[in-house]
Each structure stands twice: as C-alpha cells, then as structure tokens.
C-alpha cells in the first residue's frame, strides 16, 4: 500500500510532469458519449481546468488533510495505507432482478425526460447489484467496468439512488468529459451543480442558482399570496382583528346595556303592577278568607265523620251517633258551599290578575321600558353577529396559513378566538414580511447563492482537481463517485476522496501504467503512486463486498 510520506514525495514529483488527470484519454477505453457540456471545450482549458501551480497545491492540501486525519472518512488513511476496509454495515435489501434496487424509490419512473428514459431501462442484475453494494458499502467500493459494461448508466443509477435517500453526492473524474457524461444522463429531481463550469454554461452554479431562484419564487407564491393579508401595519388581517375586538367590546357593552334596560323594564312593570294591583290584592285577600273557611268546613266534616265512625262502633253510642249524623248533615253542605266560594274567589282573583297584567302591559311607561330593553337586546345581538362575521373573515385569512382554533359564536368563544388571533398576528406579520423580502431576494440575480448551492446541493460534479479548489475548501459529501478511476493516480484521486465519507471508484482495471516516469531516479513506491491507478491499487486488497465487476455487453 502507501504511506503518507510517499504521497508527499509523489506530490513533489507532480510539477515536473503533467498531472495524471491531464493525460490524454484513451478513446477506446472510455465509451462514455461526449455530452453537450464537453463539446467545444478545448482540451485542458475548459470546464474543470486547473492551473499547474494550483493543481500541485490542491493535491498537496489533500495529502496534508490525509496526514492530519482531516478527512470526511476517518478511516481513509488506514484504507489507503494498510488496505484496511471497514467491516460491512447493516445489510441492504437484495436488489430485485427486474427493476431498480429495492429501497430506492423509482422517482425517475414518474418523471419525464431523462428520468422516464432511465426508468425504461431496467438495470441488469449486476448493475442492480452494483447499486446495492454502492449504497451499502461503509467506506469504498471498487466498481470494475470493462469497456461496454454500461459503466455510466450504473454510475447514474448509483448517484440517483444515493441522492434520493438524502445523501450528498460528488461526481468526479479526471476529465470533464466523463463528468459531463454522467451529469447529462441524470434524471430530473435532485439539485445538480457543476462546480467548475465557468459562466452560465449548462449545469453551472449560475444556472443552478437561477433555477433554484425560479423554483423558490414558484413554490413560495401560494404562501406569499396567503400571507399577503397579514402584511403591513396595519394589515387587512389586523383590520379584521380590530373589527372583531371592537365588535366584541361593543357586544359586551350592548349586552350590559340590555341587561340594565331589562332590569329597568322589570322595575317599571313591578311598579305598575303595584299601582294597578288594588282589586287584585282584594281578590287575593278574599281567596285567603275563602281558603280558610273551606279549610275549617272541611276539617269540621272530617272531625264529625271520625266521631261518627267511633260512635257507631261503640255499644253505647247509638244516641250520640244520631246527633253526630244530624250535625254532619248540616256540616257537609256547608263545606261544599265553602269550597264553591273558594273556587269562585280564585277565579275572580285570576281574572283580576290577568286583567292587571294586561293593564301593566298596556301601561305607557312599561311599554316604553320594554321597547328600550328590546332595542338594547337587539343591538347586543347585532354587535355579536358583527363579531362573528369578523371571526369568519379571519378564519378565511388563516386558511392555509395557520391552524384554525375551535370557537363558538358567543362572547366567551369569540373572545378566545380573538385572543388566539392577536397572539398569532405578530408572527404571521413577521412571516409575511420575511417571505416578501425572501421572494424579492430570490427575484434578484445574485451570485451569493452559489456558495450555498455548492454546500447544500444534492449532487455536485467536478473534476478531481476541481473538487479541491480553494473556494470549495469546506465542501463535504456523503458519497463520491469517481468515474474513470482506472485512469486516475492516487494523488489526484485523494482530492475528492478526503472530502467524502464513502466512495465508489468506477473504471476499467489493469490498464497498465498511467505514465512513463522515464529514467528518473524515483523510488519504486513513488513510481507506483504515479503510474498505478487508484482503482488498481485498492482493488487488489478489497474484500469481496467492496468490489463488483460489471459484465461487458455481448
């Protein structure tokens, strides 16, 4: 394997020779069709071109990062120096033989364009296996793809699947053309940024930023529209909230006024009742007298009846019984008369009372008081209805903006709702203002978003050396897919490798030396670093789980 000091020595050699990346590609080996981005790019001067001095610095920086352990994969040094691969992670579901890898939703199937084209081409079993292993491998997978083995399709599948499960992926290759070939075949969906594409070329950061800004404007349009009534001070929503609170205050005020008017009406009616109630009171007294008389007569009949029953049960009570019968014969009709008198008195009382109530109702003062009470009650109802209308309007404005609380159309229910809205209003006003500002910002062309896009995009694509540019210094990835790893020397492969937690090295193995070191006195290890590809170096010691070989097309 390799030690860090040997890498240093290799880096020292780099300025003398062109970097391995810059060696002309073997057209027969790379079956990747040149995409539109590669067209018209002069060799060594187009996308991904890195000046010689900078290239040396970038590779040296990667070596320094490896030495001090500042790598996204903490086990990278052990992997490169000692061939120590990490133990396999949790098993990834086996790939079905007739579709994309299981667990990787086939988003492309529902997408148009390239995605639909991609979905139509069901991956062959070994491609599916390659995708499965690329997603499952904890540190590095060697993907050996001989000529005609659909390497690019497999890489595209790996990138898409990794991006779909939320991983940040770096697509890299020594030459821009290989990067372009993968990029142009990626299905729509993930945010893909070409990091080293100057200007506004296809896939460039500028284009991706413009597209992101366009999407921001489109996606936030509905929310901006919904929040618009909450914008400004005073806002329409605030106006409705004020109407609600003032209507509620008015309703409460009117209710109190109505209560007072009712009390006044009752008092005036009572006074009228007193004033007009002389005959009624007389009749009431007559009823009381008649009640007493009827009660006495009834008691007398009961007493005589009881005495008669006792006398008739006695051996010597015949005479006494006779007298009692006589008295009972007198008392019973008298009691009947008393009851009839009572009934008459009661009826007269009721008639006088009803007449008095009618007189009270007809009384001018009572009628005026009743009218005032009725009007006050109506006003209270109207104020409450106005509050309810405002509440409904606010509910309409809350639709899609915040959850509508349960409320009832009475004063306590509406008060609770108004309180809830008053608490919500400053937050929604802030949101509306912030969203307006955000959309204005998104509508303005700006390169301020570029750095963030590179930092947060789903997929970033660049050449090996481009990944180490100083302005990309802090970029990290979950997965790096190094295309053409069979033609990449370790020093330049290190540049993307130190920035990713996991890696897939895809390429053709055993292609022979990458360069001729000539007659220079170079130690074997250093010569090996410069002439052997990173894929060949790592494939040798890779466990079975960390390598997969694609079949060539028949």
């Amino acid at each position, binding site marked *: 394997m390799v030690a860090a000091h040997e890498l240093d020595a290799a880096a020292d050699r780099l300025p003398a020779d062109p970097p391995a990346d810059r060696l002309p590609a073997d057209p027969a080996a790379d079956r990747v069709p040149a995409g539109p981005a590669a067209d018209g790019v002069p060799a060594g001067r187009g996308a991904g071109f890195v000046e010689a001095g900078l290239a040396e610095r970038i590779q040296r920086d990667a070596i320094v990062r490896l030495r001090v352990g500042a790598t996204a994969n903490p086990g990278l040094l052990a992997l490169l120096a000692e061939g120590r691969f990490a133990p396999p992670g949790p098993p990834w579901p086996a790939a079905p033989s007739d579709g994309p890898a299981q667990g990787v939703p086939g988003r492309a199937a529902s997408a148009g364009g390239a995605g639909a084209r991609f979905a139509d081409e069901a991956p062959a079993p070994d491609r599916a296996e390659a995708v499965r292993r690329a997603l499952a491998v904890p540190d590095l997978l060697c993907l050996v793809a001989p000529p005609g083995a659909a390497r690019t399709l497999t890489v595209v599948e790996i990138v898409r699947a990794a991006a779909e499960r*939320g991983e*940040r992926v770096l697509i890299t290759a020594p030459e821009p053309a290989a990067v372009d070939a993968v990029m142009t075949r990626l299905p729509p969906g993930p*945010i893909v940024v070409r990091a080293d594409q100057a200007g506004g070329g296809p896939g460039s950061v500028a284009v991706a930023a413009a597209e*992101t800004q366009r*999407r*921001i*404007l*489109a*996606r*936030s*349009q509905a*929310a901006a529209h919904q929040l618009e009534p909450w914008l400004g001070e005073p806002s329409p929503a605030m106006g409705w909230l004020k109407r609600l609170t003032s209507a509620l205050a008015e309703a409460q005020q009117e209710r109190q006024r109505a209560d007072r008017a009712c009390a006044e009406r009752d008092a005036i009616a009572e006074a009228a009742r007193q004033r007009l109630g002389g005959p009624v009171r007389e009749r009431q007294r007559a009823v009381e007298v008649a009640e007493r008389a009827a009660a006495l007569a009834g008691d007398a009949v009961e007493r005589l009846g009881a005495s008669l029953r006792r006398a008739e049960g006695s051996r010597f009570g015949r005479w006494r019984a006779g007298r009692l019968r006589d008295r009972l014969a007198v008392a019973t009709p008298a009691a009947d008369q008393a009851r009839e008198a009572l009934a008459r008195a009661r009826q007269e009382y009721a008639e006088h009372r009803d007449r008095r109530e009618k007189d009270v109702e007809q009384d001018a003062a009572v009628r005026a008081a009743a009218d005032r009470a009725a009007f006050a009650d109506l006003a209270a109802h109207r104020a409450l209805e106005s509050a309810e209308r405002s509440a409904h309007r606010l509910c309409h404005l809350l639709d899609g903006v915040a959850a509508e609380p349960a409320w009832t159309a009475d004063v306590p229910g509406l008060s609770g709702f108004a309180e809830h809205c008053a608490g919500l209003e400053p*937050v929604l006003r*802030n*949101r509306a*203002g*912030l*969203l307006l*500002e*955000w959309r204005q*910002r*998104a509508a303005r062309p*700006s390169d*301020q*978003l570029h*750095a*963030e896009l590179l*930092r*947060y*995009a*789903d997929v970033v694509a660049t050449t090996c050396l481009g990944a180490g540019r100083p302005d990309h210094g802090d970029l990290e990835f979950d997965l790096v897919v190094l295309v053409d790893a069979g033609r990449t020397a370790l020093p330049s492969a290190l540049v993307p490798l130190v920035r990713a937690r996991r890696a897939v090295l895809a390429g053709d193995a055993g292609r022979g030396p990458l360069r001729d070191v000539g007659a220079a006195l170079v130690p074997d290890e250093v010569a090996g670093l410069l002439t052997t590809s990173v894929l060949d170096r790592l494939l040798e010691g890779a466990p079975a789980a960390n390598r997969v070989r694609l079949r060539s097309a028949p």
Partner: protein
Amino acid sequence: MTEPAHLPLTEIERRVSALPEVRPRRIVPLLLPMWAVEVTATVRESQSYDVLDRYLSRAVAEGGLTRTAELAEFLGVEQPLVARAVRHLAGIGHLVRDGDKLSLTALGRRSVADGRRYQLASGRRLVLRFDGFRGEPVPYPTVIRSVWLAEPSLTLDGTVFRALGGRPLPGDAVDGLLARRDAGDFTGPVEPVTATTTGISPIFLPVYHVECDGDDVVFGKAVDGPDPYLAGFIPFLGGNRET
C-alpha cells in the same frame, strides 16, 4: 524599515501652533506606561451571512417556524437542501434541536439581531492592551494606529522621551473587558468571549504632552490632532485637566 514610533517634535510644534486658542508653554515628550496582556481566547468571529442561512435563521427567529419541513415549505426550497443548511447552522452553533423542533442558540439570536454570522473559534492568541494608570482597556483605533514600545526608552531626532511610572494592572482587568457590552470597541472585530491570560508585560506609548496656559493637550500617533483619549491621562501627567 520599521515605522517611527511617533512624529518628530518639530511636526508637533507645527500642529500645535496651528491650533486656535491654544497657547503652549512647553511640549514634554513622554512614554505612557501601558500593559500588554497576552490571552488565549475563544473569539467570536463575524462574517457576512450567505443567503439561505440568513433567511433560515430569520424564519426561525422571526417567523416562529421550528421544523425543517415547515421551513422548506415556507421558503420554497427543497427539504434536503434545508436539512443540510440546518445541519450547517447547527454545526456552527446557531441552531439546536429538541426532538424535531429547532431553536436558535444565544449565538444564533445575536447573529440574527446583528445581521452578521458569528462563529466561535477557540485557542486564538490575542494581545489586549490596558493603560497603566487606571487599568482600563485601550480603544482599538489607538491600539492599531500606535507604535508600542517594549522598553521604556525612546530618542527621536534627538528628542528624549521620559518614561512615567504606572500602577499594577488590576487582577480583573481582562474579565472586566470581556463583560463590557462595548468590548468590541477595544478588541476590534475579533471579539473574545472567554480568555485565559498567558502573560502580562509592560509596554510604553510615546506621546507629547503639550502644557498650555489653558487646558493641556496630548498628541499621540493614532490621531492627527490632539487625542481626546490620551487627554484623559493629563491628571496623571501633572498637567491641567482638560475641561
């Protein structure tokens, strides 16, 4: 070529004579006693916000949005992108997670309030300067525009500067500086949050004390004319206090 520690006396004479209503009696070249305190500090660095991280932080702070999905929907940005931006902000200590809810840390809140992205960096070595009379911190413009002498001796174009004696540095001088709300006025853009003192050494600041019939003035190197900060030391120089 090293920078001269101060202007020559002739230049000061010229400047003093150009001042209206100043009647100088004599000009005294002095070396004011100061303290240089070396500290290892955790500093608050200030950077410009990028676009998304700024609006994301504001959406949490001002919009009361606390979940990644809410933030993504509100800003109209893809959720994975927002999730990564949230991770980045959490990584620099601006956001904390409580379950699936996000909230701003004190550093995040201050960043939003100031519109600057602050980041804490530990292990920074700084030199803080305090005056040798009251133990107060020296304003940052004076710190950076002055030449500080390690030895109490200076002869400039034949003019000998006399070194004054000072007082020991109060033990709580550094803590007092860190506790000040205007600490940045003394430390510059890299503001220490916590600091451990690693060394204290005396240093000297060359000044010209211009004794006048009225109020005295003091010329340092940091300001072209009379230095109002240095004028505060006139009572310690035996001159007339500036009114």
